[in-house]
């Protein structure tokens, strides 16, 4: 399948743009766009056109979601074409070219050969991050062949990481000998819970055991209780009998005593006491009777002697009242002269006041001067208002004056303020400037950074050896790439090493040849060594001799045979042929014998000879190789120098030049940084200048001077802010003045009104005042004090008049009372004491009162004696009656005791007492015995008790005591045992302790189950992945690896000749690179990061090619993977991609112009097609041509 056209109708920054990709067979389409040109957007658009726009796309910043559209045209391998438009949505997102009719997604899917999005991205796309991950994964996996192939084959980049992750999760779950992983830990907890459950579970057997033990102990307790009861009963009985025996004896004695008094009459307990009491009372009552009679006689005599004035006593009330009134009479008589004096003084004072008032009135007419309460209050009220009215008018006048002054002052101040000005424009300019932040600091920082960079560059430049030009020249030097230096370092090292190796071999061989020569010489020098040639020659001679002999024998000796002569001459000079023949046979035999005898030496010589020839031969070859290695080294060195020709510096070794180049690059970077920094400084300065100008323009328009002394923008702005503040302050002041003035004028008119009101109120008061004081006889000019003084005098006058009236009335009262008292006294005296009538009143009253007192005393005494007489008479009569009663009592007692006279009574009482005592004691004894008998009939019990011998009984009791205490002890023991069993029993209380731990164990089990299942899943996953990797390796390593090796060689510019699988120490297949010489191999750990990337890319392309053979090819989308390749390797990679484009369309997106240049310079026009994406910053200018083919 081929993409003919990609229409960016409305997507990301694009609107109605097209990318035409139809040229070429498939073509390598390089799409170039600088940063922000929309390269990433177009990449995304391509993918989303084919597979749909995701729900949460961010490419809606220009076009709303519903307007997003991507379209284009596709052509299948069979030439079938499809044009469609993709919109965003959930259903029917694919439409025809008219963007109306829906297109069946299956058509597109068919065009794509059923490849889904994930696979399209994975297999038919590669970007720089994937390349880098792939390279890193190759290095991290130490070139594990399986993993590398699997990763590159699937486009996964990091299968090793997936594998490690699974294994790590597995280890967190379980390790055979571990304790921390969750399963191991849960197993441990489970065991602990199981153990605890076992400890806590109470088996039924244990409960039964405790139950049985408890029941047995309770039974024992019952038995002991029974025995104890028995022993205690016996003991109790014996103790009772022991106590009863003495009582039984006593009972018998009492019964015998009772016989003697059995006939005595039982008298009451108080009989004797009553008898004695009666006798004593008779005696004492008789004495009372005698005393009463004597007292009665004495009282009668006293009564007869006493005299009482009855007439006087009858008037007791009148006399007593006179005596009481006498006091008042005497006091009034004493007070009267004082009152008369006070009356005279008062009248005198009144007259003086009248005189003072100078009204010409007599005292008796003073009433005319009286003022009513209303008049008085009116005058006092007006007097009180006087000051207030006067003050009111004064204050009102003052306020008017003060306000007039204030108005003038404020008007003056307002006149002195300058004209109004607006500061808003200036404020806005200041704000605009401030919005850009601390530009001074930015500028100084930028400048400091620029200085720093320049200083750094200067220092670095000085440090840089071999160079004495400027920084700019240095930056522009056409230096070779680091990779090139790497290559030359390797190549030089290889060439040198090659030369050195061959030279060493040549040297070694030369020595070897010499050594062999010497050995051969030595061997021959020691003794001539026969050779096979010698033997052959001797035998030839011998055979020749034999021919001669045979010929001679057959034909006869000719005598002139030259051959024979020569032969004879050689073997038997002077002899004949026979001798010579014999000698030749001997000679040949001798050589043969020696050859046999000296076989070692012969062989040694032969070997040495052959070796020397061989060494000589190889030495010649090596010398030729040495010459060619030297030539190769020279060539490499020449190429190395060529690389630097343009630089014109003294060339050093690649290693040193690499260091130099690094420094040079660093300096070049610094130079770039300086440029950027300088432009940044200039930008800030220009910006500040424009802001400053703006502010200054505003200042001038306000008429303010431009500050000269301010060096920084901030200070300038500060100055401007001060100006703004000053203007604002003036305006504020003016506003305040106007406000004040308005207020003061208002206040002034109010004050003038107040002053008029005050004046009219004062006038009214004056009229009222004149009218009020006229009653006092005062004029309108009288002051309130004058009025008050007149009122006070009038008040005093009426006070004095009132006092003199009262005094006069009291004197008249005294005189009237005295007359009445005299008449009362005379009337009483005429009744009760005429003898006193002539005496002065007060004396007469005192005397008659004394007589009344004496008469009262006598009357009282007489009454008392009469009462006493009556009571003594009652006492005497009572005594007589009591005596008679007591005597009757004694008589009755005699009858009760069966006595004839009272004198016999004591004897009867004594017998009765004895009978009573015996009976009482018998009763006590019987009660005690009854108690001891404990309910048994007494007589029977006594009979039974008397059967016991007291001595035996006393002996039995301690024995019983011991038995009881022994039983008590056993009872305590059993009770303790019961307590202990009950305790044990109580601990088995139906609690859920065991069940709770059992539940915990279930939780652990559940955890282990889920962890174990996950562990099995992971374990299987790990095994499946591992084996799949191995199987994939086995299946694919042959042809794919061979193709990858070729690509790797190309991409590394022949630094490697290929790739090979080797086996490491653990017998695992690993991938190694083969050096150019075809012998030396390099593991991935020995490859640079870049080489690892190239290795991954080789494998990736090899797999892609292998896939393309079997299926509908899809375009291969490459996203800027060459950014870290040097130019040479980038060219190699581009060539590899152009090679791939013979099989499928390749679309290469890049940000890098130099890659476009490299492609153009190195690839054929019928394969390479370049396209440029224009930035969105100029959409309006380039509408319709933003994306154009070049």
């Amino acid at each position, binding site marked *: 399948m081929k993409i003919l056209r990609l229409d960016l109708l409305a997507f990301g920054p694009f609107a109605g743009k097209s990318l035409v990709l139809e040229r070429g067979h498939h073509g390598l389409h390089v799409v170039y766009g600088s940063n922000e040109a929309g390269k990433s957007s177009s990449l995304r658009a391509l993918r989303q056109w084919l597979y749909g726009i995701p*729900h949460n796309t961010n490419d809606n910043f220009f076009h709303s979601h519903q307007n997003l559209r991507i379209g284009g045209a596709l052509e299948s391998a069979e030439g079938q074409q499809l044009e469609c438009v993709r919109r965003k949505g959930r259903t029917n997102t694919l439409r025809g070219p008219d963007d109306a009719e829906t297109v069946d997604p299956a058509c597109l899917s068919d065009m794509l050969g*059923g*490849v*889904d*999005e*994930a*696979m399209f*991205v*994975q297999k038919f796309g590669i970007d720089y991050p994937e390349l880098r991950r792939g390279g890193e994964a190759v290095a991290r996996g130490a070139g594990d062949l399986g993993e590398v192939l*699997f990763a590159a084959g*699937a*486009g*996964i980049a990091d*299968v090793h*990481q*997936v594998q490690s992750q*699974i294994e790590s*999760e597995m280890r967190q779950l379980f390790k*055979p000998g571990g304790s921390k992983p969750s*399963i191991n830990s849960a*197993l441990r907890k489970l065991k602990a819970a199981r153990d605890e459950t076992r400890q806590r*579970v*109470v*088996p*039924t057997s244990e*409960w039964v055991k405790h139950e049985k033990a408890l029941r047995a102990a309770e039974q024992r307790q019952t038995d002991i209780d029974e025995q104890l009861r028995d022993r205690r009963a016996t003991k109790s009985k014996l103790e009772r009998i022991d106590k009863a025996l003495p009582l039984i004896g006593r009972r018998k004695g009492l019964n015998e005593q009772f016989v003697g008094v059995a006939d005595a009459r039982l008298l009451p307990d108080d009989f004797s006491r009553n008898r004695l009491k009666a006798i004593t009372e008779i005696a004492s009552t008789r004495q009372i009777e005698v005393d009463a009679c004597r007292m009665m006689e004495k009282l009668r005599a006293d009564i007869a002697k006493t005299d009482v004035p009855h007439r006087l006593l009858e008037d007791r009330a009148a006399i007593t009242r006179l005596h009481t009134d006498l006091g008042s009479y005497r006091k009034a008589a004493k007070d009267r002269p004082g009152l008369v004096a006070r009356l005279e003084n008062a009248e005198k004072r009144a007259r003086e006041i009248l005189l003072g008032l100078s009204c010409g009135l007599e005292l008796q007419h003073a009433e005319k001067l009286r003022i009513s309460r209303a008049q008085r209050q009116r005058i006092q009220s007006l007097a009180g208002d006087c000051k207030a009215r006067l003050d009111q008018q004064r204050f009102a006048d003052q306020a008017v004056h003060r306000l007039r002054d204030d108005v003038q002052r404020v008007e003056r101040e307002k006149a002195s303020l300058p004209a109004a000005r607006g500061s808003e424009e200036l404020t806005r300019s200041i704000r605009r400037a401030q919005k850009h932040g601390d530009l001074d600091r930015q500028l100084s920082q930028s400048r400091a950074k620029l200085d720093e960079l320049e200083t750094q560059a200067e220092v670095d430049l000085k440090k840089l050896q071999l160079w004495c030009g400027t920084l700019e020249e240095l930056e522009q030097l056409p230096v070779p790439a680091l990779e090139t230096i790497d290559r030359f370092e390797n190549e030089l090292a290889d060439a040198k090493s090659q030369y050195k190796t061959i030279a060493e071999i040549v040297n070694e061989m030369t020595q070897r040849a010499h050594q062999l020569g010497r050995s051969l010489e030595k061997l021959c020098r020691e003794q001539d060594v026969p050779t096979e040639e010698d033997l052959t020659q001797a035998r030839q001679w011998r055979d020749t001799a034999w021919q001669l002999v045979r010929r001679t024998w057959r034909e006869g000796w000719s005598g002139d045979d030259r051959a024979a002569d020569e032969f004879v001459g050689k073997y038997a000079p002077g002899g004949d042929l026979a001798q010579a023949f014999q000698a030749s046979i001997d000679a040949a035999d001798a050589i043969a014998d020696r050859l046999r005898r000296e076989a070692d030496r012969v062989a040694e010589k032969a070997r040495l000879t052959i070796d020397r020839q061989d060494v000589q031969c190889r030495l010649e070859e090596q010398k030729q190789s040495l010459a060619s290695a030297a030539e190769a080294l020279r060539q490499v060195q020449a190429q190395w120098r060529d690389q630097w020709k343009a630089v014109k510096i003294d060339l050093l070794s690649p290693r040193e030049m690499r260091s130099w180049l690094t420094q040079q690059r660093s300096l070049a970077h610094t130079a770039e940084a300086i440029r950027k920094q300088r432009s940044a400084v200039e930008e800030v300065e220009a910006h500040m200048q424009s802001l400053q100008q703006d502010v200054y323009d505003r200042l001038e328009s306000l008429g303010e001077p431009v500050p000269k002394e301010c060096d920084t923008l901030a200070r300038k702005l500060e100055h401007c802010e001060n100006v703004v503040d000053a203007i604002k302050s003036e305006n504020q002041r003016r506003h305040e003045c106007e406000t004040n003035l308005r207020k003061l004028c208002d206040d002034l008119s109010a004050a003038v009104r107040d002053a008029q009101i005050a004046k009219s109120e004062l006038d009214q008061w004056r009229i009222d005042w004149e009218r009020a004081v006229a009653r006092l006889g005062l004029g309108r000019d009288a002051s309130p004090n004058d009025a008050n003084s007149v009122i006070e005098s009038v008040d005093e006058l009426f006070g004095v008049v009132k006092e003199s009236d009262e005094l006069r009335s009291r004197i008249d009262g005294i005189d009237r009372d005295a007359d009445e008292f005299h008449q009362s006294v005379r009337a009483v005296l005429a009744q009760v004491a005429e003898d006193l009538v002539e005496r002065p009143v007060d004396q007469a009253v005192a005397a008659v009162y004394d007589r009344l007192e004496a008469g009262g005393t006598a009357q009282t005494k007489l009454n008392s004696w009469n009462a006493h007489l009556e009571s003594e008479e009652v006492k005497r009569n009572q005594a007589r009656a009591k005596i008679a009663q007591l005597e009757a009592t004694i008589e009755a007692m005699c009858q009760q005791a069966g006595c004839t006279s009272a004198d016999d009574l004591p004897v009867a009482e004594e017998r009765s007492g004895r009978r009573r005592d015996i009976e009482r004691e018998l009763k006590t004894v019987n009660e005690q015995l009854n108690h001891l008998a404990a309910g048994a009939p007494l007589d029977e019990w006594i009979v039974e008790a008397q059967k016991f011998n007291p001595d035996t009984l006393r002996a039995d009791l301690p024995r019983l005591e011991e038995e009881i205490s022994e039983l008590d002890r056993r009872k305590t023991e059993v009770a303790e045992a019961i307590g202990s069993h009950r305790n044990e029993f109580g601990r088995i*209380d*139906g609690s*859920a*302790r065991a*069940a*709770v731990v*059992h*539940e915990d*164990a*279930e*939780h*652990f*089990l*559940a*955890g*282990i*189950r*889920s962890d*174990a*299942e996950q*562990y*099995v*899943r992971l*374990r*299987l*996953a790990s*095994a*499946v*992945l591992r*084996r799949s990797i191995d199987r*994939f390796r086995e299946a694919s390593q042959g042809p794919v690896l061979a193709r990858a090796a070729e690509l790797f060689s190309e991409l590394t510019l022949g630094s490697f000749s290929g790739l090979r699988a080797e086996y490491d120490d653990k017998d695992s297949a690993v991938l190694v690179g083969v050096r150019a010489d075809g012998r030396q191999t390099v593991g991935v750990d020995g490859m640079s990061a870049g080489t690892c990337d190239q290795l991954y890319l080789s494998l990736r392309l090899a*797999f892609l090619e292998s*896939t393309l053979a079997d*299926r509908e090819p899809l375009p291969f989308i490459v996203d800027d993977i060459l950014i870290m390749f040097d130019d040479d390797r980038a060219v190699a990679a581009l060539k590899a991609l152009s090679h791939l484009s013979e099989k499928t369309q390749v679309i290469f997106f890049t940000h890098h112009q130099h890659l476009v240049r490299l492609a153009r310079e190195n690839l054929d026009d019928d394969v390479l097609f370049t396209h440029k994406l224009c930035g969105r910053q100029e959409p309006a200018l380039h509408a319709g041509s933003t994306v154009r083919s070049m």
Partner: protein
Amino acid sequence: MFKFIHTADIHLDSPLRGLERYEGAPVDEVRGATRRALENLIDLAGEQEVDFVVIAGDLYDGDWKDHNTGLFFVSQMSRLREAGIPVIVISGNHDAANKMTKSLPLPDNVAWLSHKRPQTANIKKLHELGVAVHGRSFGRAAEYDNLARDYPERQSGLFNIGLLHTSLSGAEGHEPYAPCDIDELRRKQYDYWALGHIHNRYVKNNDPPIAYCGNIQGRHIRETDAKGCYVVTVDDGGDIEMHFHALDVFRWGVCQVGVGGAQRTEDVLERFSSELSKLTRKHADMPLAVRVVVTGRSRVHERLVANPVAWTSDIRATALDITNGSVWIEKVKFQTSPTRDLDSATWTDGPIGELLRYVRELRDNEALLLEVSEDIGDLSRKLPVELTTGADALVLDDPDRLREWLDEVQPLLLSRLVEAIDR
């Protein structure tokens, strides 16, 4: 009129199974669940003022030996005694296997019917009510005889209740103990058959009622929804009304979360929240153990299967948030499928194709499968016997089981590998 409770399968102190602990799980709510359910039963008897209680077997777990469990049962029976409620019990297979049954000092309101022969409970209160309860205990755990056959004839004029621990003519997942069939029970002409043994509540016959009341507390994910007992009211005319009353304190449920068409992984948690809220509302916010089953064809499938452990944690955290910790997520099962078919022709070549072929080969070749999973033996040997035996035994080298895991391994691997691509 009288009222009684029909209950069975109390399995006192039997632990709740399959609950893996995690931070925030309602551990305290699970504690002693069977005991609290039994307490609820006793409370219910008091509230409903029932006249008697019948228990159709399996008070305990057969292999649980803590006598405290029995004593707890006794203490609860004593509460019924104080309320004047008699209890008629028969042993089930679990009780017959448990020694505790014989040694317990039962209060005198409990009549435990004989295992030697069918018996009619002799209780004064039942005589007064005109009720005859017939039953027979299991004498051994594995009772394969038909016990119902010898049950006494109906006592005429009385309300006859048959108390039987049975699996009738067989039930899935239950041993065929005391087999008999419905017709046989009907022929006895009893008025009510109170059955035990099957833990799901089920009325097998309406007239007369032949009913399983189920157990009183669900103990694992196969015992879902409300568990409790029947309160049976019989009026003077002999008409019967059965009311189910839930007694459980912790309930089991399954939360099906359909994620079909979900675009984002967040959708999964949102849909789960919604489904879980429905479930908790349905069970009136009582503590739940929930199995979450995620199903549907969705773009998020790969994310889910790539790391089921992490997703399980996320689901648990979400449940914790929305239920304030009253739900215990027992397990999360991911039964989703991808929107793209990884098995399709697209992937036949290359490494992924090789992997898919290999998995297929493993699935078909048992010997190869066992060889690949050989290393699992390390773990297999360490697993506790409780996990490797029983109904849902975890047998790590069982080829069928391995094939199931293999079915999960394939998407797990592919999603991780494809996720590496999608990055």
